[in-house]
């Protein structure tokens, strides 16, 4: 029993990171129907920005996270303007391939500029403490990751539900052309979506740095793919779905490694992707509208 609770703690902090990345995927998909494969790499850039703001500027972890979020928000907007906007009216496969291109560009540009080796996240920014609660080992970084992830998700929910920008985003997502007719600036709304999604990814990147202690230019690939699975599982384009999907994948991986065989962990996550696409392509939270695939 105690082991199970420990595994759930492990799964929740892993899931929180997946959920944050999945949110960016799902927001972008919801609004322009593009699977932004560069999203995991934006997370990587966020981790490096956080790293440099701690090592070079000597900021604490909260400020580092804010700087990373701001820089990546800008990066997201630039990526959208340069790479995706010119292709907005072309075929979906063209944008998809562009997204893969942007992903490779970010990875190898970082390797070119900073080298392929891992960088060690400075431990001065965050002192790890372990709490022993009823035989469970709970780390303050578990709490940090979980609380800041949930906090950011609540802020996101507020923005989408109760602000004008959020309303515009929902409108564009629902019907692009009708939104234009209602006087909504579609370009601006899409830029905002990329900014918010990329900022969340940057926050996740800094969390990965704090949590696992080391970052490298290819660190975004696997979490990016897992988060993509999470987004599809929850129903791509649906924001609460991405959160739930993230946590489900995190817990699932933990339980497979803990009670099944650690060798099957990745097979199970990607098996879920195949299964959900076969059985319920709209995802757990998706409604069968007939137009989504």
């Amino acid at each position, binding site marked *: 029993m105690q*082991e199970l609770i*420990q*595994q759930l703690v*492990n*799964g929740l902090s*892993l899931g929180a990171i997946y959920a944050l990345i999945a949110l960016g995927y799902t927001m972008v998909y919801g609004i322009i129907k593009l699977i932004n494969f560069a999203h995991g790499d934006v997370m990587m850039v966020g981790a490096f920005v956080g790293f440099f703001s701690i090592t070079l500027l000597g900021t604490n972890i909260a400020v580092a996270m804010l700087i990373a979020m701001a820089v990546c928000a800008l990066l997201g907007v*630039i990526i959208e*303007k*340069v790479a995706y906007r010119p292709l907005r009216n072309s075929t979906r496969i063209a944008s998809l391939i562009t997204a893969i291109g942007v992903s490779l560009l970010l990875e190898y540009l970082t390797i*070119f*500029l900073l080298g392929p080796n*891992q960088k*060690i996240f400075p*431990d001065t920014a965050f002192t*790890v403490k*372990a709490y022993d609660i009823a035989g469970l*080992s709970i*780390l303050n970084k578990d709490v940090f990751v979980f609380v800041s992830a949930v906090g950011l998700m609540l802020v996101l929910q507020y923005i989408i539900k109760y602000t004008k920008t959020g309303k515009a985003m929902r409108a564009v997502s629902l019907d692009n052309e009708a939104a234009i007719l209602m006087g909504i600036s579609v370009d601006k709304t899409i830029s905002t979506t990329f900014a918010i999604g990329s900022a969340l990814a940057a926050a996740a990147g800094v969390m*990965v740095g704090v*949590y*696992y*202690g*080391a970052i*490298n230019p*290819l*660190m975004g*690939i*696997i979490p990016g793919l897992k988060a993509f699975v999470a987004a599809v599982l929850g129903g791509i384009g649906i924001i609460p779905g991405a959160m739930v999907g993230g946590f489900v994948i995190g817990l699932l*991986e*933990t*339980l*497979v*490694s*803990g*009670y099944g*065989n*650690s*060798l099957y*962990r*990745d097979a199970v996550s990607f098996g879920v992707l195949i299964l959900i696409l076969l059985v319920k392509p709209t995802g757990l939270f998706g409604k069968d509208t007939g137009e989504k695939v």
Partner: protein
Amino acid sequence: MFGTKKRRIAILIMMVFMFGIIAGCGREAPTNQQPAPTAGAINVGLNVELSGGVASYGTNARDGAMLAIEQVNAAGGVLGQQLNPIVRDCKSLPDEAMSVSAALVDENIVAQIGPLTSGNVAGSTPIMMENKIPLIAPAATATNVTVDDKTGATRDYIFRVCFIDPFQGTLMAQFAADNLKVKTAVIYGDTSSDYAKGLADYFKQTFTEKGGKILGTEGFVKDDRDFRATLTKIKGLGPEFIYVPGYYQEVAPLIAQAREQGITVPIGGPDGWDSPDMVTVAKAEALNNTYFTNHYSSQDTDPKVVAFVEAFKTKYNKEPDGFAALGYDSVQIMVQGLNDAQAADPVKLAGALAQIKNFEGITGNMTIDTNHNPVKAGVIIEFKDGKQTMNSRIQP
């Protein structure tokens, strides 16, 4: 931001220039040492990586080999003749290693020392085999360096002075069973590399033979960073020892997370752990009570090693690493072979090398087996408060 097309192009051009400047920095032209061949001397070829990706391996091995040659010559040489080293850079490339070997063959060398990596040795192998000149690899650890994969036959002219990778699994199992006196172990290794899989197999075999019990085998893959779920499971199994064959990128966070979960048992691994990043990522405290196998330690108190370290430091003003020690041993084993063969003849030298027994090297006593692999000791390195310290020498 990108208002006009012209401005966009201007920015692009600027970026290209910036990259050019960055890329141009920090490269030094490699220098080759090419002493003229001396008449009446025994020519020894050094085909080593002095530039390129693994330049530090080759440079250190060359320094070790040159020290050995200097000492041998100072003591009167071999068979009454001086050794004449011919040093060439193979630029860390297999095809370059091949052309360097071809050039060395023309210099009438009696043997070639190097290259260092298994891949570069493979590049040089066909030339050496064809010309029937022994190649002594200081540090090529892949199994197929000395044995042909397809036919299973030993390559007559290829030798090495390092043990093959999986052998470290045997050494660690011996250390765990005999020195740490543990009875149960869990193997939690990298399943995406042949290196780690071989190590895990050898560990399992030897540990079971010694009467130990493997409670479970778990795996991770390259680039994994989250090991907590499996570690929680391993904690539940309650082993006395955990064997983690893998590379430091994954092992460092793995150990940190194991200690965070309250797993205090000793953890062991192979030379893939040997990196300064281990301490920076996992932190000194978490690394206490962890051990890894390696070829050599400069802290060894064996008088032979102490003398070697002294001489090396005096000559080069730096600490000799494993490659330097293996480079040194490569030359010494060749000298032993020449003395046994009583002729400076490559074919006779190869025959003598294959027969070498109990050669006393810096990196341990060696007996060359039928696969041209040395059966030799390894050292156990222990992390103590973030410092690598030599724990013991394990003789198989």
